[in-house]
């Protein structure tokens, strides 16, 4: 057992640099990580990951629970800094800039890199309309005309406008689960970020609501770079252009989604995809 373990680790180590294939590298990179490791205290949750995430495409991150995919995602907008005891080594370039350079403020980064969470979290004290523009308002935009325009545009982008246009003043939390999640997407989109990070955005939704969010992801990728963490391999297959497979804190493979699901280069990826473990 110990032997197979170490063999696995060795094969991962040799393949780490080869994980990002040429088809990925030919795209403009939104993110590029170099030896990125994340530590929770003494535990290395993400281990020396080198990958590049293509701009204006959907990249899915899949892998079994605890493989470090959410942790990795939270590093991309420095949300991991909120976790006590978390620290990183290595670097992340975002459109060529080092995200961790000391002169970059995490608050500024998060305005450019939006995030949608597993559990929908509209602000409970705000109406639907107020929720959408909360980020803008609290970042100092007061012009009512601008706010109103951005609110409608964002709700339309989130495919929610037609459902809520008549009761924009109702509390955000009065919506159904799927609508709440799209409201959260509208709220993130309203900031006009360059990147949208999604941490299992559909895991609490029923299939119909999931379908709507997935359609939305297809619409949004024309404007944004989207990185989506998902437990659901079918979802990765349906809505992503590229798929990264993480296992035990390591990036095993990143390639076009079609290739990952039909002809993966790594044995572990194939085993996971075909349901032999995980």
């Amino acid at each position, binding site marked *: 057992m110990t032997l197979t373990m170490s063999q696995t680790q060795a094969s991962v180590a040799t393949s780490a640099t080869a994980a990002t294939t040429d088809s990925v590298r030919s795209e403009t990179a939104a993110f590029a990580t170099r030896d990125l490791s994340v530590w929770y205290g003494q535990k290395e949750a993400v281990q020396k990951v080198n990958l590049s995430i293509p701009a204006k495409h959907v990249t899915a991150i899949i892998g079994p629970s605890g493989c470090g995919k959410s942790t990795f995602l939270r590093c991309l*907008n420095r*949300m991991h800094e*909120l976790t006590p005891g978390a620290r990183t080594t290595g670097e992340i370039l975002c459109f060529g800039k080092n995200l961790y350079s000391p002169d970059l403020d995490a*608050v*500024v*980064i*998060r*305005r*450019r890199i*939006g*995030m949608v*969470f597993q*559990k929908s*979290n509209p*602000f*409970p*004290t705000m109406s639907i309309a107020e929720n959408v523009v*909360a*980020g803008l308002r*609290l*970042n100092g935009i007061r012009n009512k005309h601008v706010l109103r325009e951005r609110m409608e545009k964002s709700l339309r982008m989130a495919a929610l406008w037609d459902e809520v246009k008549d009761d924009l003043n109702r509390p955000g939390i009065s919506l159904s689960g799927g609508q709440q999640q799209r409201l*959260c997407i509208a*709220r*993130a989109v309203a*900031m006009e970020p360059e990147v949208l990070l999604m941490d299992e955005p559909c895991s609490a939704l029923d299939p119909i609501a999931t379908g709507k969010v997935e359609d939305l992801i297809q619409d949004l990728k024309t404007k944004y770079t989207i990185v989506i963490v998902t437990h659901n391999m079918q979802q990765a297959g349906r809505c992503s252009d590229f798929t990264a497979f993480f296992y035990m804190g390591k990036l095993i493979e990143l390639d076009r989604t079609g290739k990952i699901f039909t002809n993966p280069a790594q044995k572990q990826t194939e085993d996971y995809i075909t349901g032999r473990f995980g």
Partner: protein
Amino acid sequence: MTITAQNDKHSWRKFKSGLVSFICIACAVATVAPLALVFVHLLQEGFSAVNWDFFTKIPKPPGESGGGMANAIVGTFTLLVLASIIGIPIGVLGGVYLSEYGTRRVNWVLRFFADILNGVPSIVWGVVAYAAIVVVPPKGFSAYAGGAALGFMMVPLIMRTTEEVLLLVPNGYREAALALGISQWKTTLQIVVRSAMKGIVTGVLIALARISGETAPLLFTALGNSHWNRNLHDPIAALPLQIFNFAISPYEDQQHQAWAGALVLVTVAFLVNIFVRALTRGKAV
């Protein structure tokens, strides 16, 4: 194993069950009964003295009948306002610190001291205010000193309730706000504190209700005053103080007014609690 034996066992078990139920009910009644007794007694003794004069006139000299406690009622509200100026901002922001900013070790120390302060007898607060304010220049008993003593008392009360309601705010809201690039302090004030506003207001009201009846901290700070207070640097009347003074007075008229004052205080506490119940109906936060 005869049927009679079984019946005996059965009735003995029923008896024990009934006995335990009875003891529990008796204890529950014993908890609520004093409130009912106090309220009924206050109504009997004080209701006749609660009239228009009571709310509009100041006390008559001893021995004369008539007069009221208007100055004490206004005095109590003045003291509550002064106490709030100290107690609410420090208490709420301290609670925000505990919930949103403090590290585990600092929080442990702060909570420990806040809990000790919550248990400090109220007369000790009076002594502290006396030593810190009354005996330093400009010397003298004053509304400020009384308000400060009550304000100090409010701080740990409000701090702990604020912390508790803020901790009930789900972390998802903080993360959502921070992920929108909203700065930490705006997230704290505009998202977290706003979400928990009802709970914070409840904590403040309960603290106010609690200190509004305090007598001991006022004995050697606000001192009491049988006339209107014209200057906050001077002694000021307060309902609990007036009740205390009139209750031990030899004049029957003043004793009745003391009962009436007590009735007003209890009624206010009662109304505040009903209001708080209405405010927090449904959700805890």
